[in-house]
């Protein structure tokens, strides 16, 4: 009977296990997690700290006991995998012991980065990614008198941290090296509006400057910036970004074969298989297809992780004797894509974000840093803007009118993938009735 390993039990790992069982895999599934709690969603940490969610709300798939009961898995919690020996399909654990499997899924996620602090944050310096990060910040906010905070990173996480602190009447300074809010999703014109809105709420915004170093003296945190200034606050929260946990697949020794291909993330093909047959990856640690560029890219979204996990689990569960998983990777070292055509394939994604904070909703789809003609229209329900070249839409920003976001994203994806010549009359009417300008609808249709 085959034996599979899943490293990490976040969204991708959970959905992979679910998919394996739903697709008939009856062998052993061993799950390795370096924490003791169930699958957590990093996005929910700020909601827990703010008090909008109870602590158990951060675990959307329920308890570990439920996981074992529902999917008959063998759990190895508080167990760190040191290394994946790809050629032997062997996991080497932190304590030096090892175990061999038939297939391995790496769903190790990503971690928050904290270069200005040099090491794991402590005292009154915080990250905001893990359950432990949330527990620490919540405890300090509840037990100490905090009146000022610096939030580094004008990101989707940074804005939610800013919101929760401001709602506790804490004076917040947001800092980012970029020239705008949400630099990976927001066009400059949109950012101008959002920044004005933020500063109007009393948030101090320092852009175009990074953190040089941080000094902690008692209850005072001094954040020294690259422009020579210094911000002194009670706490510091770093929301700079994340880094894929690729290390345990790096430098693998694969005799007579290429090692696991890693760029920023572990590179996978449409079946979520890495360049080494039998080793799969899914979720925030992997790079999958970005349909806008045709290249692989980390697009760390909950929905992507769920879909990637589902695909990986299904492909791992499939009978791989002759007609599915190839024994040898392509000669160029790229991920193999010769799996059985009957297996599900990940269709790819584009960068897309939706965030709601204070009473503002921002939607970003595509790359705001691409060049092209600009379209912007305002109406009573908000604003919609786009970067396009007449033929291709490269980026869309929406303020306010969030209900159209899914329709707009769907049509943009259809256009990029060559299915977008036709817009259903019903959808066109729904967009019109939602206040979307005719010019934008035509842009989306053409």
């Amino acid at each position, binding site marked *: 009977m085959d034996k599979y390993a899943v490293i990490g039990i976040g969204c991708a790992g959970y959905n992979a296990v679910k998919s394996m069982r739903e697709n008939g895999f009856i062998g052993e599934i061993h799950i390795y997690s370096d924490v003791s709690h169930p699958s957590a969603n990093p996005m929910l940490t700020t909601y827990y700290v703010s008090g909008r*969610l109870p602590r158990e709300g951060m675990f*959307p*798939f329920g308890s570990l006991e439920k996981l074992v009961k529902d999917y008959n898995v063998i759990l190895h919690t508080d167990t760190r995998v040191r290394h994946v020996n790809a050629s032997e399909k062997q996991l080497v654990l932190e304590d030096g012991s090892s175990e061999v499997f038939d297939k391995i899924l790496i769903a190790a996620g990503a971690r928050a980065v904290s270069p200005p602090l040099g090491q794991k944050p402590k005292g009154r310096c915080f990250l905001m990614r893990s359950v432990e990060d949330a527990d620490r910040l919540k405890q300090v906010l509840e037990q100490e008198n905090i009146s000022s905070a610096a939030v580094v990173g004008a990101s989707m996480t940074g804005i939610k941290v800013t919101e929760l602190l401001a709602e506790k009447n804490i004076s917040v300074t947001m800092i980012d090296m970029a020239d705008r809010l949400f630099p990976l999703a927001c066009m400059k014109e949109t950012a101008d509006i959002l920044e004005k809105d933020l500063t109007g709420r009393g948030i101090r915004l320092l852009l175009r400057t990074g953190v040089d170093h941080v000094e902690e003296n008692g209850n005072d945190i001094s954040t020294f910036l690259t422009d020579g200034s210094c911000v002194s606050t009670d706490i510091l929260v770093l929301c700079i970004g994340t880094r894929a946990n690729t290390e345990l697949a790096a430098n693998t020794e694969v005799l007579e074969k290429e090692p696991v291909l890693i760029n920023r993330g572990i590179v996978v093909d449409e079946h979520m298989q890495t360049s080494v047959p039998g080793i799969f990856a899914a979720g925030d640690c992997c790079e999958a297809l970005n349909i806008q560029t045709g290249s692989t890219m980390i697009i760390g979204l909950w929905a992507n992780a769920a879909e990637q996990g589902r695909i990986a689990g299904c492909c791992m569960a499939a009978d791989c004797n002759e007609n599915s998983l190839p024994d040898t990777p392509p000669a160029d070292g790229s991920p193999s894509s010769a799996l059985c055509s009957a297996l599900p394939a990940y269709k790819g994604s584009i960068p897309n974000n939706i965030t709601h904070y204070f009473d503002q909703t921002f939607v970003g789809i595509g790359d705001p840093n691409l060049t092209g003609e600009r379209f912007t229209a305002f109406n009573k329900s908000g604003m919609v803007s786009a970067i396009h070249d007449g033929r291709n839409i490269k980026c869309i920003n929406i303020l306010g009118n969030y209900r159209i976001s899914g329709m707009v994203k769907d049509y943009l994806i259809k256009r990029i993938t060559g299915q977008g010549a036709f817009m259903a009359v019903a*959808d066109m*009417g729904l967009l019109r009735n939602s206040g979307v300008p005719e010019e934008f609808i035509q842009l989306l249709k053409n």
Partner: protein
Amino acid sequence: MSYKINFYADLCVACGACSVACMDQNDIDTEKGDQPYRRAYQTDYTDSGEKHIGYFSASCRHCDDAPCIAACPSGCLFKDPETGFTVYDTTNCIGCRSCSMACPHGAPAVASTGKMAKCYGCNERVKAGLKPACVAVCPFGALKLEEA
């Protein structure tokens, strides 16, 4: 048995009875800005050079592989195994709007409560052998409860 609420455009005049029935069934508080889960509307379009007016009633399609379910960060959305409708428990809904971003039909909205709200197929009515409110009230039979 799985169901779908199917829409037959050639029978619809966008009278709005479905929306009103939805408001009534679900106690939609329009004074707070909340909207019914089903929207009736008309729009003009051109086909083969001729101008037409289309009449529609739109709501959640209860997709077989509903993308809103996977997108919800809190696990609030799920399929009712008995009816196949995409239903929800918003106890842990954070109002993040990820469901809206995932839905290609513009169905999920956030109500004045700060929680997601959308058509749930009048799930309890259907389980009790009744039709969804919008289906029951449609005077032209443009909405039908049918086996999926």
